[in-house]
């Protein structure tokens, strides 16, 4: 009962109340919806603590074995503990916390984003080398035209890039979003109908 019926009952009840609160945004349904979402956020905070502890445990174990990746684990543990200590000491808006974020985390993430752009170009080049299909050529042609169209004073290329973005790309995107929305609706309906329960025993 505690493993299957109760989790399923509460999941279905919460799902139904949030759904009704969304479609019928009047009191008391929208108030109940607000409280349920707030409770979910509180539970998520405990999940963050558990995940943080598990992150430390995994990397401490890797560090203890001192195999490949031990240096990475040392850096992860050090940065996790420093971030945690700073937030605990000064809060999320503290001066040292902000310094740490702006001097270490943001430059690191910016560098990774730049690296993402390079990996995308490399993936495109690998595709051209290994997969010479019509789809691959079309993909790369669109990418090149869109990139060139983004450069100022490119005349007709600018118009072509705009047409690609606002006609075929937008149409395709809408079709994709529509399909994903339907998939989302049916995944949630399966949980509400108790035919799928990722949160409890089968």
């Amino acid at each position: 009962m505690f493993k299957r019926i109760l989790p399923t009952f509460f999941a279905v009840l919460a799902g139904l109340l949030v759904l009704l609160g969304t479609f019928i945004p009047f009191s008391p349904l929208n108030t109940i919806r607000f409280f349920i979402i707030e409770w979910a956020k509180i539970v998520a905070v405990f999940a963050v603590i558990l995940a943080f502890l598990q992150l430390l445990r995994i990397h401490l174990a890797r560090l203890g074995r001192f195999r490949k990746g031990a240096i990475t684990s040392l850096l992860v543990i050090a940065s996790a503990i420093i971030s945690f200590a700073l937030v605990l000491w000064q809060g999320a808006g503290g001066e040292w916390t902000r310094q740490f974020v702006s001097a270490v985390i943001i430059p690191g993430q910016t560098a990774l984003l730049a690296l993402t752009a390079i990996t995308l170009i490399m993936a495109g080049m690998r595709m051209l080398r290994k997969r010479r299909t019509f789809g691959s050529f079309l993909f790369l042609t669109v990418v090149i035209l869109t990139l060139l169209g983004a450069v100022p004073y490119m005349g007709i290329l600018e118009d072509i890039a705009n047409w690609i973005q606002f006609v075929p790309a937008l149409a395709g995107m809408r079709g994709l979003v529509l399909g994903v929305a339907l998939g989302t609706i049916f995944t949630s309906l399966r949980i509400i109908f108790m035919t799928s329960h990722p949160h409890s025993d089968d």
Partner: protein
Amino acid sequence: MLANLIALAITLIGAVALVVYGLRYRNRQPAWRAFPVFTGLSEEVGRSAEEGSVIHIALGNASLIGENAMTSVAALEALSALSDLAAAYDTPPIITTGDPTLYLLADDGMRRSYARLGNLRRYRRSLVQYIAADPTTYAAMTATYLYDVGIGANIILGAFDEEVSLITEAAARRGIYTMGGTPLASGLGALYPALKPKQLLMGEEFFAAGAEISQQSTYQASLGGQDLLRWLIMGSIVLIGILSILGIVGG
């Protein structure tokens, strides 16, 4: 308010369709178009068992209380079927996530797969790992992980943006077979050049993963319902277009 009513109507039609198709598919399996990627997923688990290599499954960063929550739930449904298979072969996959709520559910699902097979003492907590909260950092750390640990196959299932290319690039350099997909357009743009069509799940195909891997009638029913609603929405778009041209509706 009108938008809310339309959404409510779509949800109600979906609910009725789910029940009707569920009853219809209880005794007979429907025939859907083939998705080679799903056959590949099961085959990879078997191949890893034979070779003794490890499968890595990347679940991404979509929180269970965020807008992509159902993407993560769909990924977990597919993972559940794969975990059962992996637990039966005793070749546990390594699962990485970038969201704490997803980490808890994936860990619980993996543990239950072992418990179902009466093999709980073989379960290790390090099989499901929380990597990092930021999507780009998660992808970069996962890419590093692919280099450090001997991975045989890499499965990408979840909400990913363009940062997924860090993972696919690392896998390509190590010669690791990669498959999977994401429903997000920006992630698909990055996955398309990296994966062959038979290795890639595009958009809504992602939500067919549970149905294809588990072959359960409830999942099949939701595919039937999705098709029905898609036709209804397409019909409505065409009808509104015609009425608009005739000047009956719209400005």
